[in-house]
């Protein structure tokens, strides 16, 4: 019987044919931990009496949630992690290195891997066709020591996406639309498998946005096949030798198939306080915004910063709106500096914070005041998420955030974009050229 991507990857690891619904014990290739979940994982690891890591070169600790530490308690947590890393030979991405889900994909994750991480957005790795899922500290502690975990092989939803993104709409808008359609628990325990011409034409940056938000529909993982786009990305990151093509079998069994055409997609806005509280931009226009946040593992890669840059360059932000930017990683930050984006953001009136998660997890940097409306490129908008339960979080694409930062109220980015300049337009032009060549 044909296999889904999840069944293929887990079967390979278990060295037997597994199918959806089975509970299996599987080897784990990569373990991800961060400063919020790492200390508890280390304590559990020590309680287990374990001394050695199963795979130190692929056990990675990220100091990204409190980067740099704003408090004594967190500085001590960081110290605790650094000491454990020094003792065991685990890998460390220290403060400023970037958000775990960005950096793990830049340097550690390969197609066909099983990655488990003590962070819910570990699912981001599905963009490189790695079976990647979030778990708690205890599970990751056991995987660090024993090199394995148990899994229920998930049933899969096939998400078939066709059409070219229209002017002003992006991967983020599609994902908000999809979650609005199926609901915040619409795919609980399931795997999402994204396919279709639109996905094939997407860059890795856009694919990472999709996979990242799979958990916002409740999914265990969001997978995309590995293909020439994946190869190009791995090559750029110095891992061309780690590329392998993985595709689902043509007769694989899916619990559900959802077909969407993005060619008429409008920019989307997720209203407070759940991600599936989704509306189209026209229903949100004019809402006053006190803070705009361009950051997070969802939308703070170079392409996202570029979209923002192209809308705001040479302009000034609204004087009543604060603008905060956190590049997703040190690499993204450096690239953005070289391209002049960071300078343009500062001239625009934005504050640039270190690469990390801070504002998105309510730890530091960008906590809203009571009654504030915040428009963010984040993946979730739960009450209190950014540190104050009395502020409201709206979610949107980097383009909507840029246009809104100029006007101080939710604004249609198409008012500022010219057709030739948008990232998605460029992407689709390239792909149509390629088709012509064939």
């Amino acid at each position: 019987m044909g296999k889904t991507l999840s069944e293929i990857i887990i079967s390979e690891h278990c060295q037997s044919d597994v199918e959806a619904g089975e509970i299996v014990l599987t080897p784990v290739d990569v373990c991800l931990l961060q400063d919020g979940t790492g200390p508890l994982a280390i304590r559990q690891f020590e309680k287990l009496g374990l001394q050695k890591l199963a795979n130190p070169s692929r056990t990675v600790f990220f100091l990204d949630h409190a980067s740099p530490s704003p408090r004594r308690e967190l500085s001590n947590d960081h110290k605790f992690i650094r000491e454990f890393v020094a003792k065991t030979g685990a890998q460390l991405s220290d403060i400023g290195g970037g958000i775990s889900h960005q950096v793990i994909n830049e340097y550690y994750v390969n197609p066909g891997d099983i990655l488990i991480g003590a962070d819910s957005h570990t699912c981001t790795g599905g963009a490189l066709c790695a079976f990647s899922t979030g778990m708690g500290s205890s599970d990751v502690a056991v995987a660090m020591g024993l090199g394995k975990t148990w899994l229920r092989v998930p049933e899969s939803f096939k998400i078939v996406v066709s059409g070219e993104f229209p002017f002003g709409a992006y991967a983020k808008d599609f994902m908000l639309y999809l979650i609005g359609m199926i609901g915040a628990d619409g795919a609980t325990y399931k795997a999402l498998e994204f396919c279709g011409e639109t996905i094939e034409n997407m860059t890795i940056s856009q694919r990472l946005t999709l996979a990242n938000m799979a958990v916002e529909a409740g999914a265990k993982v969001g997978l995309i096949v590995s293909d020439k786009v994946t190869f190009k990305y791995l090559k750029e990151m110095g891992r061309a030798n780690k590329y392998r093509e993985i595709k689902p079998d043509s007769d694989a069994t899916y619990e559900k198939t959802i077909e969407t055409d993005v060619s008429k997609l409008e920019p989307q806005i997720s209203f407070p306080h759940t991600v599936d509280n989704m509306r189209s931009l026209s229903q949100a226009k004019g809402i006053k915004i006190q803070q705009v946040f361009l950051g997070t593992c969802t939308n703070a890669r170079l392409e996202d910063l570029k979209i923002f840059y192209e809308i705001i360059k040479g302009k000034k932000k609204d004087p009543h709106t604060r603008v905060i930017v956190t590049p997703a990683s040190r690499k993204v930050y450096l690239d953005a500096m070289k391209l002049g984006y960071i300078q343009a953001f500062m001239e625009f009136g934005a504050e640039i914070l270190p690469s990390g998660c801070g504002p998105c997890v309510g730890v530091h940097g960008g906590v809203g005041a009571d009654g504030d409306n915040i428009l963010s490129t984040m993946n979730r908008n739960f009450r209190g998420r950014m540190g104050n339960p009395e502020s409201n979080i709206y979610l949107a694409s980097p383009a909507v955030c840029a246009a809104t930062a100029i006007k101080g109220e939710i604004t249609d980015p198409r008012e500022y974009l010219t057709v030739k300049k948008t990232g998605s337009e460029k992407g689709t032009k390239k792909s149509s050229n390629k088709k012509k060549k064939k």
Partner: protein
Amino acid sequence: MILKGTVWKFGDDISTDLIAPGRYFHLRSNLPEMAKHVMEDADPTFASKVQEGDFLVAGKNFGLGSSREHAPTIIKLAGVSVVLAKSFARIFYRNSINVGLPVLICDTDKIQTGDELQIDLEKGTVTNHIKNLKLTFAPLPKVMINILNDGGLVAHIQKHKDFKLS
């Protein structure tokens, strides 16, 4: 095992941010202190009212969001013996079993704050004699029953030196 307790009822989509707010991130290495803020953004008075052995009951998709195992841990530290909900978010569900907190899936519509319930974990029943209510809940997968019976994942691995799936 039969458990008796009083209900604290919450609604749908209670996120881990409502259970264990991010602004207490610095207390993650001091869980008894963090437990004083459990459910604070859903009900600021909950932590001071909840008694040892009480039941936390909610609607659908309880625990959505973060992977923070601190969320079920502080629910347990606050004294809650069982969480019942119409459905749970995946990571929270797995974490709860790993910290030894029973999480049961059943129709919670007719349960209200203040109800006294009897829960039979073996038979899979929830009863309330005053309301003449008898609900059943779906059994856990065997591996989760094993982990729960051993008192959580760390104790489970200490005992078996591996996962015991069957």
